[in-house]
């Protein structure tokens, strides 16, 4: 499913983020509520994508620790938005698994009352189309 594109390239494409715009201010990591849970910190996402090292990124704990709270997206002064990158990385993983988009009727069985509300909202926002 790679169409000859590297995974990092796919992440860039899906997220629409230009990682070159990052000025390494760290505002994303400063804003992140899951910072301590993450092995790769939000501000580092950018350099992983930039260095074409998507593998480490998609295999990181961080990928699934991001709450999609959008704090980094809201506050990034350079329009880099690491949250989008992480979301893009997740999608490449999901696509690779062949597990395509979730059908609406499949959602209820996945619902876990412990899931953070924000994640659900973000998921719906992302997958509604």
């Amino acid at each position, binding site marked *: 499913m790679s169409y000859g594109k590297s995974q990092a390239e796919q992440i860039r494409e899906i997220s629409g983020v230009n990682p070159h*715009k990052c*000025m*390494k*201010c*760290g*505002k*994303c*990591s*400063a*804003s*992140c509520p899951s*910072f*301590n849970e993450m092995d790769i*910190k939000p*501000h*580092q996402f950018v350099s992983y994508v930039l260095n074409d090292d998507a593998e480490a990124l998609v295999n990181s704990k961080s990928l699934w620790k991001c709450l999609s709270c959008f*704090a980094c997206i809201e*506050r*990034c*002064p*350079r*329009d880099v938005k690491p949250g989008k990158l992480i979301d893009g990385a997740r999608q490449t993983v999901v696509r690779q698994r062949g597990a395509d988009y979730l059908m609406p009727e499949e959602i209820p069985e996945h619902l876990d009352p412990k899931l953070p509300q924000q994640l659900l909202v973000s998921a719906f926002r992302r997958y509604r189309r």
Partner: protein
Amino acid sequence: MSRVQRIGVFVCHCGSNIAATVDVAKVAEMALLEPGVVHAEEYQYMCSEAGQAKIAEAVKDKGLTGIVVCSCSPRMHETTFRNAAERAGLNPFMVEIANIREHCSWIHKDKTEATKKAVILARAAIAKVNLNAPLKEGESRVTKRALVIGGGIAGIQTALDIAEAGYPVDIVEKTPSIGGRMSQLDKTFPTLDCSACILTPKMVEASAHENIRIHTYSEVEQVSGFVGDFTVDIRKKARSVNMEKCTGCGVCSEKCPAKRNASEFNRGLNNRSAIYTPFAQAIPNVPVIDRENCIKFKTGKCGICAKVCQAGAVDYEQKDEIITEKYGAIVAATGFDTIKLDDFDEYAYSQSKDVITSLELERVMNAAGPTGGHLERLSDGKEPKNIVFIQCVGSRDVTCRGKGYCSKICCMYTAKHAMLIRDKYPDVNVAVFYIDVRTPGKNFDEFYRRAAEEYGVNYVKGQVGKVAPQPDGSLLVQGVDLLDNKQIRTKADMVVLATAIEPEAGVRKIATMLTASIDNNNFLTEAHPKLRPVESPTAGVFLSGVCQGPKDIPETVAQAGAAAVKAIGLLAKDKLLTNPCTAKADELLCNGCSACENVCPYGAITYESREVNDHGIREVRRIAAVNNALCQGCGACTVTCPSGAMDLQGFSNRQIIAEVDAICR
């Protein structure tokens, strides 16, 4: 082509510079075959006195009407030969240069080829001169008075420099006093001298200078005219206090019952009365009545200030007055303000009184400020123990929240604040979150390092993501230390935001009035980013201070002086010679479509309704008119004009086509 030219061609050897590679005799010989050429000769050094004499002689003997000099670059000697022609009684613009040195002999080795090329270059110049028309430099008078818009340190310095050179200057300042942002500052980097101590004498000097008139509480209303001859309407807002009668005793402010109005000077950190002088050293030391908040103006009752004024200076009937003045030069020195922080909610600026901007901190630390210079929290008056400074708040931010540029001064003033606090209150911990520390400037980096090394200021490479006010009154600061790759959660008692600066709000309106160009960030644009940094592209308009781009005080003062010199240079002239190579519209061809007006960078083209006689048909048409004093002769309009009505004198369509034809022949 109605007139037949009598052209003389003069081929220069330039020693062996040209003659070694180009057969100069052959060039002269071939030139004689060209239409219009009645004389051709060659000489060792055309630019020498003897060479110039040869030109004069030929003009006289052969009745020349046009001259072609085949020599070095026109950038070198065009003026020389034009002057020579003028002395010989010819119009100087009847001279053209064929550049056979830089563009020929110096770059070619083969003599045959180089000679052939030189002949062609000569032909092109001859073809052009055949179509040259005498041009006359226009003259426009210069009003020997300058206007400075803005009475901050930039405007004051510019005005003082112009006044010292002997020219009258008017300062228009929209607030009640001159002094500007610098008057709000406590200490200045990197020497830590007191801002007021160095500014106040300059304010006094300006107000006492016989060549300077200060219009405070006034705004520029309208500007017309052009370089050397601007006409400006200035609105003098009603002060409600008679400037002549007021003695500045201050009793009115003291007795005024309407005391709860946010003080602009103290950035709203404390209150002032409705009749007020912004600060103690204000110039003029005459209060104004803030009519919106004055009880007398709101309800008609009160009038206490008038009653207590022994001088009888309070005048509720005073009206705005519009004065019209003439100026030769205008200097914009409109300054800056800090950006609004409404969109930066994560720093809790609107939620906590203990989150303040750096400019507010200046007031807090100032002895004349709301806390009498005592460093304290504005919420409870307690001395803070932990202070966090956050850099780049809104600067270098390309989203719609902030400004894409670096505000330039924040790194240094933050180092200053941190150092001053550590010096005066050694128990207070100070941390600075930064992205980069930028300290290019004399003694700047040393200053910053002193803050870190000698004063123990904790510089953290990283940003703050969130400031959360806690129930106990403290502030929880969540940031990141990128070098440690750790998130930091720390409690602070005070957070200071290095807020981005932006040009003062009214600058766009002023730029429009001045037809000065302005960029997307509302900074006024310079005529050339490197070579003409204090001039606006609009002739006669100069730029001083932060209105052109972020600057610190020494830079502002330097630029203010530079702008003054440029203005003085203009005022020193009795008359301005205008470049005669300006655009000219043929009224019979003009469609009135405004295309040219849209591309003119100088606003030199306007449209007027004019009656024309088009081969017997008389009608009123919309026609382009070029102001020769404003036109710089770039020619953008000539190409955008579909009908060819707009042409450039000295570089006309037919002249250039003649050159093209001669080269391609």
